[in-house]
């Protein structure tokens, strides 16, 4: 466990070196919010943010991603044969990702890298990433990461954890990928490691204390599914929902996608786009029947998936890292904390 220190004066130089070594992504300020963008030529990421509006999941699962291509030109031997599009999985470094978002990748990985199925697109993109996290000193009022299996200084899923220490950054190098990036950026080890580790520990505690909301999840695993499904509170919870899909799109742990074919002239492509369980088309059968035809069905499904089905299937906590984006972005203020409480406390066996 090595710790490097980088003074803020030396920071621009480090960014320039890194952007030459690999494709570099970091938070950049747009008009009213931050988002992860490519940093060109020593562009400095803007760390003056709590979190980005949309999660960085698009770095691994782009919103629209072409997977296969085929030609309809009968003169070619390979006509009508779908071929994989070569992907550039050259190394990328994401700098300034929050620990909750890094934890989210691990959560989603369970789905895309299971015993039976491995998604080559997702895994290829994920493995090309080195994640340099930025610890949170000032969590949002909507953050509840500590009760959702993550934390403002959480290290799981990160290759380096950076901590802002006034006039310098402390960088805790966690994995060998992290070591490579630290070397490329010219970050040198600090001599007084023990003291720094303690300092990080203190800052971690101070940050965790600032988190004022939490979710209670201890009973979710033991609840019977059907009574929870049929509980009376779903009508009240789902009333205001407008099925807009914002929650699923900003969420770092939502992974559903839809596959579309498009063609132009003699070329066809097969791509996948983000999809949302909030949309009526999501479960529309070819026969015309829709098992989740009403808003209540769909809202219930989302929360049951996140807070019950995932818990049962993977036995590793809820499918949520507490980043709070859905709470602050929902146009009608549906709050997953409230729903989790209703589910956890519901009087079902």
């Amino acid at each position, binding site marked *: 466990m090595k710790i490097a220190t980088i003074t803020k004066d030396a920071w621009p130089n480090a960014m320039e070196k890194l952007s030459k070594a690999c494709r570099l992504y970091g938070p950049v300020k747009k008009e009213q919010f931050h988002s992860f963008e490519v940093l060109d030529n020593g562009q400095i990421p803007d760390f003056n943010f709590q979190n980005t509006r949309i999660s960085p999941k698009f770095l691994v699962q782009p919103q629209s991603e072409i997977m296969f291509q085929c030609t309809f030109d009968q003169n070619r031997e390979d006509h009508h044969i779908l071929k994989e599009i070569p992907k550039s999985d050259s190394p990328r470094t994401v700098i300034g990702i929050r620990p909750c978002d890094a934890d989210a990748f691990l959560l989603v990985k369970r789905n895309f890298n299971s015993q039976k199925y491995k998604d080559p697109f997702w895994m290829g993109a994920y493995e090309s990433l080195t994640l340099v996290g930025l610890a949170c000193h000032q969590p949002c009022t909507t953050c509840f990461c500590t009760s959702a299996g993550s934390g403002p200084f959480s290290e799981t899923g990160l290759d380096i954890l950076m901590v802002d220490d006034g006039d310098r950054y402390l960088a805790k190098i966690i994995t060998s990928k992290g070591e490579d990036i630290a070397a490329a950026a010219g970050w040198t080890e600090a001599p007084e490691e023990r003291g720094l580790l303690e300092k990080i520990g203190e800052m971690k505690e101070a940050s965790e204390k600032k988190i004022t909301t939490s979710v209670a999840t201890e009973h979710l695993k033991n609840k019977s599914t059907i009574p929870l499904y049929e509980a009376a509170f779903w009508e009240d919870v789902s009333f*205001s929902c*407008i099925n807009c899909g914002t929650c699923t799109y900003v969420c770092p742990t939502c992974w559903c996608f*839809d596959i579309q074919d498009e063609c132009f002239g003699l070329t066809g492509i097969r791509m996948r786009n983000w999809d949302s369980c909030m949309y009526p088309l999501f479960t529309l059968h070819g026969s015309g029947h829709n098992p989740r035809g009403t808003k209540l069905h769909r809202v219930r499904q989302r929360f049951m998936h996140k807070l019950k089905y995932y818990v049962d299937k993977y036995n590793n906590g809820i499918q949520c890292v507490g980043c709070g984006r859905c709470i602050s972005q929902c*146009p*009608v203020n549906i*709050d997953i904390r409230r729903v989790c409480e209703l589910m956890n406390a519901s009087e079902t066996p």
Partner: protein
Amino acid sequence: MTEYTEKIREISKKLLIDKSVDLIIGFRKGTVPMMNEPCFIKHPDEVGRLVWDSHCGINLANYLPNRKERIGILAKGCDSRNIAIHIVENKIKRNQIKIIGIPCRGMLDKRKIASSVSGEIVEAVEDKATVKVSGNGFSTSFDKQEMLQENCKVCKHRNPVIYDELVAEPVPEQQDVDPYEDVRRIEGLSDSEKRKFFEDLISECIRCYACRNACPLCYCPTCFVDESRPQWVGKSIEPTDTLTFHFLRAYHCAGRCTDCGACERACPVGIRVRQFTKKLNKDCFDLYGWEAGLTIDERPPLDTYRPQDPNDFIK
């Protein structure tokens, strides 16, 4: 406008006790600052849940189409116009609803307030003229008039046009506002500048359809973007498809849009989607003298034929 809360509760209680309605649709206090959540109540003792303040910008008429119960609904000026449109379009019957009309002084734009301070807002308190927001290490007051939603700034129909009860005396309508000033500015640009303007406008669009879902007018059982046989619009974030979605949706709202701002409010990436619908609203006004939803006794111009309808664009 927090002073309306008591009157709203009083009227709602009366309606529920009388059993004139089966449920009341209103707002309850949100779990984050500057937000309220639409909710319904069915019992008179639940009226304490209802609140009203300057963060009730969501258009409650969105929850009306196809409901079968008798409903009491809170409605500001723009909401009441949308309710009138729903009645004209047969999505709800007039005798099915009791409209609790709310003369509105404008709703606050929470994103504008948030970007005017540095740091997360933890609490927002309003009084008649100002809103005071505070967070970690800061506390600032803003004049409410400076922080109104874009559509509220140019609103000319703040009082409900149709109602069964009013919670307060009507407020004076704004006289000297030009709702189409920005549309005119764009009309004056060259073709390539116009293209650039709209390309930039929707460059952040993530095709989440929050704008469509928040809009009370968008109630089609299957939206054109969800059609697959034939597929009119692609589903990816390809710029041409995205632009098509936006302008085609605007066309479907032509002559019906009341500029309630629900679309802009719902957009997670802050796109000013009203630029599409406002142009069509202006055209409807210029060509037919029509503003949507002001009465339930007339059908909209795109629905009816009058001999004097302008047709100089048809050769």
